[in-house]
C-alpha cells in the first residue's frame, strides 16, 4: 500500500491531517495534508534526498497549537526516533499521533552515516545495520593538541546563526543556555569558543537522535555530526543509553544509578 493510501486511511479514521512534504517547483516543502488536498500528496520516492526538514518538531508545534486534534505523520527513521525521544520529555502526546514509516534511500543513509535509516515498523524487512563511522576515529587518531587545534579552527568560523539549535528537533527549551549572558558573551563573533559549541554538545548528551539536520543547516560547515556522535558514543558506552529507543529515559535526566553497581562508583 502506498503512503498516500495509508494517509487517506488515517484521514478516514478521524485524523485531522497528515504531515509530509508537498512538491512545489521541484522542491519538497513540509505540508499538512487534509482531506481537501490529500490527492496531491507525493510518493516517498519523489522526495529529493537532500531535502529533509524537522517534521517531528513541526508535529510537536501543531499538537501544542491544536490541543485536541489528531495528526498522522509520514516519517523517516530519524523523525521517528525524535518523536520517541520528545515523548520522553513530554513534548509530544503520541496518543494523538499515528505514524506511517518509510525507509531512506541507501545513498541518503550513506551521506547521513545513519545506522537506522528506517522506522521500527520496517525493521524486519531491512538488512542488519552496519557499524558507521562519523569521522570520530580520524579525530581520535590526532594528538591532543592537534585535536584542540582542529576543533578550535572549526569553531572559530561559527557565525552564531543558531541554526543548529533552531533546526534541532530535540531543542525545545524555552530558555536556551546558548543565549545566557553569563555563559556566552553576546555581540562577539565567533561566540566564546569552545564553550559555545561544547555547551550544545553537552545538552545533546542523551538526546541527540543523529538526524544530522544541524550539520546540514550550518553555514560554516562545522562537523557537528562528529561532535554530537562522540557525545552519543560516550553516553552509549558509559551509561548504556541510546536516544530514540523505546523504554527508559536518559540516565542524565533521572536521579539514581541506572548502570553499574554502587561498588563501581566507589573506586
Amino acid at each position, binding site marked *: 500500500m502506498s503512503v498516500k493510501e495509508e494517509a487517506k486511511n488515517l484521514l478516514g479514521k478521524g485524523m485531522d491531517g497528515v504531515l509530509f512534504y508537498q512538491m512545489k517547483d521541484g522542491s519538497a516543502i513540509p505540508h499538512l495534508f487534509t482531506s481537501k488536498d490529500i490527492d496531491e500528496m507525493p510518493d516517498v520516492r519523489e522526495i529529493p534526498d537532500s531535502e529533509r526538514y524537522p517534521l517531528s518538531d513541526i508535529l510537536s508545534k501543531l499538537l501544542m497549537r491544536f490541543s485536541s486534534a489528531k495528526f498522522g505523520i509520514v516519517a523517516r527513521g530519524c523523525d521517528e526516533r525524535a518523536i520517541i525521544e520528545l515523548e520522553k520529555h513530554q513534548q509530544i502526546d503520541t496518543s494523538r499521533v499515528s505514524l506511517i514509516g518509510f525507509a531512506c534511500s541507501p545513498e541518503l543513509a550513506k551521506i547521513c552515516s545513519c545506522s537506522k535509516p528506517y522506522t521500527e515498523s520496517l525493521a524486519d524487512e531491512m538488512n542488519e545495520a552496519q557499524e558507521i563511522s562519523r569521522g*570520530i576515529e580520524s*579525530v*581520535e587518531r*590526532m594528538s*591532543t*593538541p*592537534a*585535536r*584542540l*587545534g*582542529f*576543533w*578550535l579552527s572549526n569553531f572559530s568560523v561559527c557565525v552564531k546563526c543558531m541554526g543548529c539549535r533552531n533546526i534541532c528537533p530535540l531543542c525545545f527549551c524555552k530558555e536556551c*543556555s546558548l543565549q*545566557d549572558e*553569563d*555563559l556566552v558573551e553576546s555581540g*562577539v563573533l565567533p561566540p*566564546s*569558543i*569552545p*564553550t559555545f559549541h*561544547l*555547551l550544545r*554538545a*553537552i545538552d545533546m*548528551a542523551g538526546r541527540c537522535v543523529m538526524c544530522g539536520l544541524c550539520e546540514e543547516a550550518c553555514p560554516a560547515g562545522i562537523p557537528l555530526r562528529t*561532535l554530537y556522535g*562522540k*557525545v552519543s558514543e*560516550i*553516553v552509549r558506552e*558509559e*551509561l548504556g543509553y541510546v536516544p530514540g529507543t523505546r523504554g527508559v529515559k536518559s*540516565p*542524565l535526566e533521572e*536521579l*539514581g*544509578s541506572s548502570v553499574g553497581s*554502587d561498588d563501581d*562508583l*566507589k573506586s
Partner: protein
Amino acid sequence: MASDENVLLQDLTPIRIVAFLCNWCSYAGADLAGVSRLSYPANVVTIRVMCSGTVSPYHVLKAFQSGADGVLITGCHIGDCHYLKGNYMTYKRFQVIQGLLQFVGIEPERFRLEWISASEGEKFAETVRDFTEEVGKLGESPLADEREAAKSREALMRRF
C-alpha cells in the same frame, strides 16, 4: 620561616584550579583540613555548593573558558549523599564531560572527581596537592592562548 616562603612561592605559580565542594561532606572535609593545619597549595579557588549534583556541566565549561587550568569536583561518598542520590548525577555527568573534553583536545587529567567525606581532611589536602601537581605538570590550560586571541579580536572589533 623557610616553609612559609615555600607556601608563598607556590602561591605564585600560575596554575589556577577551581574546586566545587559539596556543603555536607567535602566542604566540612576542607574545613577539617584547615582546622588540622594541613598545608595544601593555595592555587585552588573553592566554591561551596549545596550538593555536587548541582554542579552543572555549564559551570565546568565556564570555569575552563574563564581561565581555570583544572577543575575539581568533590562530593559525598556514594550512598552518603545528603540528598540521597545527588552524587550519582555528578558521576554520570562527570563521565560525559570528561569524555567530551578529551575528544576536543583538553587533557582529561585537568578535570577530576573525588569523593571526600567530612572526616577526611587529610584526603582533601592530599587530593589538592596531587591534583595541583598533576595539572602543574600539564602547564597552563591550552585555552589560555585562545583567551588572548579572543581579547585581541575584541579589541580589533572595538576599533571599528
